[in-house]
């Protein structure tokens, strides 16, 4: 059943121009970011005396920076991907189709979430060209590339869960997207709040609740249990909230 629902959602994405516009824009912007990082890295290397050039890490300056910027791009791209998932159905009253069939709400939420992740993955797939470019210019330092991808994918999953919930509480796509943008920004701000707070306990709580510290750890290759628990519980909480929100409308 989930496969049927997922297929329909994916087909719906790829039959609309929005998906191609988003993929195109994402490729363009991420390409520019990557190019700029690479140019600035080579400039820095060339400006340094030979003995010191080894101190500039390619991973730090290009790979991690690039994925941190990709995470920033998600602030705009993921709400645009998730905004229509439930809002559009509510506007067109097509959710009745599911309430009339033996499909459980959680299956619908999961299938929609997976379809949004599929689109995000196809956007990320294009960034796979960049390591090939690096290989081509003779740089072989690919440490942390795998965990960097895992980090952005985990963040994407969390943002999708949040975006789905926002889409389920509003019949208006624009409002759903705005709510998701604000929600993601709020997650970042909590992390910043953690850094700025002088009280150790509060700072620790803020740092844990905010997404940034977890993202940075995974990005740097530390796949800790607490980060996995954080992402899993974040996705689960917003998944359950979305199901509840649909249930509230339904019955």
């Amino acid at each position, binding site marked *: 059943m989930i496969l049927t629902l997922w297929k329909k959602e994916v087909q719906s994405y790829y039959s609309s121009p929005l998906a191609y516009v988003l993929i195109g824009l994402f490729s363009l912007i991420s390409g520019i970011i990557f190019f700029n990082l690479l140019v600035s890295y080579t400039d820095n290397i060339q400006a340094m005396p030979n003995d010191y050039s080894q101190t500039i890490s390619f991973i730090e300056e290009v790979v991690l920076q690039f994925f941190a910027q990709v995470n920033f791009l998600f602030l705009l791209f993921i709400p645009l991907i998730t905004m229509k998932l439930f809002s559009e159905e509510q506007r*067109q009253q097509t959710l009745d189709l599911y*309430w009339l069939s*033996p499909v459980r709400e959680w299956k619908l939420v999961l299938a929609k979430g997976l379809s949004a992740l599929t689109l995000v993955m196809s956007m990320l797939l294009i960034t796979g060209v960049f390591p090939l470019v690096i290989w081509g210019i003779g740089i072989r330092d690919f440490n942390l590339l795998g965990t960097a991808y895992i980090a952005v994918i985990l963040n994407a999953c969390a943002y999708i869960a949040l975006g789905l919930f926002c889409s389920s509480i509003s019949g208006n796509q624009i409002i759903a997207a705005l709510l998701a943008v604000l929600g993601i920004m709020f997650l970042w701000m909590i992390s910043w709040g953690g850094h700025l707070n002088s009280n150790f306990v509060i700072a620790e709580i803020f740092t844990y609740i905010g997404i940034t510290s977890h993202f940075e750890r995974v990005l740097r290759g530390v796949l800790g249990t607490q980060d996995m628990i954080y992402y899993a519980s974040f996705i689960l909480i917003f998944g359950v909230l979305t199901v509840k929100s649909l249930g509230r409308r339904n*019955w």
Partner: protein
Amino acid sequence: MDKILVVDRVSKEYPGRMAVSQLSFEVKKGSIHGFLGPNGAGKSTTMKMIAGILPHSEGSIQLFGQKVGPDNMELRDKLGLLPENAPLYLDMKVHSYLEYVAKLHQVKHVKDQVEKVIQDLNLKDVAGRLIGNLSKGYKQRVGLAQAIVYDAPFLMLDEPTNGLDPQTMVELRDFIKKLSVEKTILFSSHVLSEVEQLCDHITIIHKGRIRASGDLKEIHRKFRQGLVIRLGLGIGESLPDLSSFGKYEINHHSTLTSEEQFMLTFESESDIRFELAKFILSKGLKLMTLHVESPELEDIFLHMTETRR
């Protein structure tokens, strides 16, 4: 089981407004049950409550002997609904959409079932087209197709012919009539002639309350007060005194090209046609028409929905 649907004292309250109040009616197996009411009477709300899409605030709804509720998954395959706004994905092709609906209901032979429905509803020419590009008539057919593609034994059709061209309207009506051989149908409309043609049982609802419910003939009989006779005499002839047949009143008199026509209502309901004809002829008058009028559904409907405002 004689009764497919039993709605028992069901109410639906929205904040500050009662959408339907204390509704009770039944739908018998194998019947086409007309659900009549002016716009905003609560027909769509009631249908959505029966379908389990909307919760009811009070009362109970039993479908196939089971309580309607959000967790009753078994009932979801037994009921097909064509709501006022059909749940159509405008970016899907007709064939794929119907296949999708069939798969949601885990239909065993999806392809065969979809082909059958496409054939039955004359959708073959548009099967490969996007639903968003179809005319209103075709969209409505696709909406009906989604309600029947999983072969539910009970169908609820909310104003299925509303806003369609006459030809499509007739085709859909004929199709609904055919469907009723195998299925029980609850059919809402405000086109009264349509309800009279299709339905054997009706429920009239107004401002969220039931005005009448039951066998259409029975409702006709109940509504009829006295005997209404349309009597036609020759041009220029006047009506003789008919008080020997009991108390009566002349409701209407008109001069047509071929006759003087009178609408008479007798207090007594006994059939006096033969005696009346003999009496008229014995007075040397030309008897052109003598017809017992039964009240039109429209009269009943107007009576139920206007006089009780």
